[in-house]
């Protein structure tokens, strides 16, 4: 089972993702700020990062690099409704593996997790 870090400014979205993914046996750590995400990432090894890159006040490049530095083998998904937005492009340039529409796509996440934890 995978260990997943989710960064999203919407508490309900975090709660919902937590609820859904834990039902499939995964461990989900929800965070609402960049600082919290980086701090949590330091202490654990993650398989998947789900990061809302549209969130106000985050430095996308710094965040993505910090998360991937803490868990180099993890998959980082940038969550955004604007694939050509500056922040999205920065996330991809910094190492985001794929993009996902907001608020999230459960089918795609489960498919990704099947690849990570077959």
């Amino acid at each position, binding site marked *: 089972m995978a260990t997943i870090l989710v960064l999203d*400014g*919407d508490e*309900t*979205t975090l*709660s*919902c993702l937590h*609820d*859904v993914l834990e*039902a*499939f046996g995964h461990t989900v750590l929800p965070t609402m700020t960049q600082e919290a995400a980086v701090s949590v990432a330091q202490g654990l090894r993650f398989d998947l990062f789900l990061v809302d890159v*549209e969130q106000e006040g985050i430095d996308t490049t710094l965040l993505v690099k910090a998360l991937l530095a803490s868990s180099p083998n993890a998959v980082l998904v940038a969550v955004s*409704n604007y694939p050509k937005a500056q922040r999205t492009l920065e996330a991809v340039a910094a190492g985001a593996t794929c993009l996902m*529409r*907001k*608020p*999230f*796509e*459960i*089918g795609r996440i*489960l498919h990704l997790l099947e690849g990570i934890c077959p």
Partner: protein
Amino acid sequence: MTSDKEQTVAKLLEESHEMVLRFAAMTGKSHVEEISAAVQKQTLEALDHGLEPSVDGFFDLFVEDDAMTALAEFRPPSGEGKPLDLDLIEAALQKYSINHGILWDQIRRGLDGCNLDRRFLSGVVVAQGTAPVVFVPGHLRIDQRTEAKPTASDTPVDFKQITPFVMVKRGDLIAMRMAEIPGVVGTDVKGQEVPFPTQKVPFWTPGSNVVDTAVGFEAAVDGRLVLSPPTFEVNPVLELKEGVDYRTGNIHFKGEVLVLGKVAAGFAIEAGGGLSCTSVLDAFDVKVGNDLVTPGGIIGNGPGRVEVGGQVTAKFLEHIYLLAQGDVHAAACVLNSVVKTRGKLELGEKGILAGGQIHALDGADMFQIGTPTGPQTELYLGLDFLGMEHILWIRERTKELHAQLTKVDSAIPYGGHRVADLKEAAKKLRVEIIQLTETAREQLMKLGQNEEATLTVRGSVYPGTLVEICHMRFVVTQKLTAVRFSLDKRKGIIAVTALGTEATTPSASSGKKR
């Protein structure tokens, strides 16, 4: 020397002289052919005499081990031998004790062929016993038809259509009662009795969900025929332990379906009863007669749709087109889906609805609609989607008819000798439009409507959300928290009430849909 002696000597000398003269003459060349012919004649006569000795006609019999058949050999007479006669054959039959099933016609034909045509005949059946009739005990015969349809040899096989399951409907005859066929003893060619054999038949005993009738056993319920010799029964639940894939084919089951594994993409499931999935239902084409329940979620797959006759209960719904006759319960979220229910949509304690369209006759209840930057969400409440779909279909057809009528009307001035035809076509189009309009009006009158339908949001509703109750529309322009949307019939607006206080918030966006 006496005179007798002299006569004898004289005769001897004379014979010797004649012999010498005869042989001396035959040694000449002119007599070689004469000698050869004589030799040939002597040789052939001797040969003929050796090849065809005089032998009487001969008859021999052979009785097979089971004594059910006697075979004969007819050997014709040769030379000066006697022909075969019936007495000889009768004697042979008697010798072998053959007294039953004697085929006299065969024997006569054999005699004629043998004596008249001098033909050698062998393997001629001259006696045939009477075979016994097999005894078949009374038994049950199971109808093991399968659902797989035969296809033409040049038609590509859709392996998804092939299923190993035998589905039955209530009242289907699944085990036919076969009556006993009594056995009859036979007689061999020697007149001995041959006992009848007994046919081995399958032994079946009825299990659960089958009823005894005059002709056999019928299914008491819709379900799957299960054969566990010696028991046959109908299981109203189809349990798919390894999910749905090429091993199971598409599922068409009259009863309850329980899917314990995954449903592979592209496979259809049709359950006359309910459908339960323990994993995520990757829904391509799903039809459920009763309730659909999954502790996982339902994820739409391409253009497929999910039709449910009862309620839907799932952890989440994503990218699906769902039509449900009953309530829809999603514990976590409904994302980018079209959900149409003749009941109510209810989400869990922190349930999110984001994106897509909701049509719910009895309203909806959830924690949050949309996200700060999420997709637009539309909710149409208080109307029966089935009636609405019919009305919308009529509206589209009417538009098409109007467009056609415009074309026909504009062509009439230039119609030449076809003007009458064009006018007739225009008349028919107008009649059709009037009829469709009337049908739509009737449908609208009958349309299921629930003016008490409300939308309750315990958390936030984000801007961009469209709420429509019984054709009255409200567009959320600012984030609202803990509110209930309802129809204020007196004012003709959508009232937005804060939960707990029940105070009404003025709704500037509310109004009759144009």
